């Protein structure tokens, strides 16, 4: 009842998976993310105590910014 009231369809679907199933699904997103040129380094974040350029070195080969959200199909 709580999930119906407060979670959207995608959240509900994700919540219903087991941790192992979530891990497997998340692993699948890695290849998509990297394929889209996503960077593994954090983006600049002025609110982070680690907001130093040394930690944000990598720029994706295609020059695009990292992807924030990747929807599952």
């Amino acid at each position: 009842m709580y999930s119906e009231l407060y979670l959207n369809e995608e959240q509900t679907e994700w919540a219903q998976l087991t941790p192992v199933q979530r891990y497997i699904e998340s692993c699948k997103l890695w290849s998509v993310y990297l394929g889209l040129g996503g960077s593994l380094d954090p983006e600049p974040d002025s609110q982070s105590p680690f907001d130093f350029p040394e930690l944000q070195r990598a720029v994706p080969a295609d020059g695009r910014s990292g992807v924030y959200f990747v929807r599952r199909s």
Partner: protein
Amino acid sequence: MGGQACILYGGAEFSRDIDLSVGIDATNLAAIRKALDSLRAETIFVPSLGEAVLRQGHTCHFRCHADGVEGLRIDLMSKMRGCPDFGYLWERRSIISLPEIGEIGLLSLADLIQAKKTQREKDWPMISRLVETDIAQNIKKADEQKIIFWLKECRTPAMLIQLAEENGELCKKVMSSRPLLVAALDKNIKELESGLLEEEMKEREQDRQYWQPLKKELEQWRLNRNA
């Protein structure tokens, strides 16, 4: 811990790095160094991995170069603001067995939520979602301890109002440690939202204060390294 733990608890779908909370006795540090070597992990920022810096609350940052994990970022830390010592974190950890990896220790949900109470605005929706997911998954089998945990940590106003309504007596018990529950019991959504924002701002400020001396130290080390 971090984003990967949020995925396993159902609060997130993806994280681009791996954050690990580590015990810092000599044996463990040696094992960590060996593991980092096998990943060809390069230290990319100050401080270098060491017992003293981890004990102080610093984070050690790595980038891997081994085949299959090129570019993977790993951050190691041992002490987190508001969280108990590593020994307690370890005792309270969840254990999950992952395919091709085996058993891993996962920060308990309560400790993960505490660790996420940072100065960064983007960590706060994650806390909300972690609790929302936990409620959705466990509402039918929740015991008193679980409901108390939700009453203490839930950040979704409508959910909190429903929890308070269904658990009035427990809510009254928790109220002294979380005054905004008065507004939840009164179904006063405006006051509840304002209380939640106040809680968040207070924690974020405390985190900024906590990091101030550590940041100073980081900046000094960075200057020395670049000199």
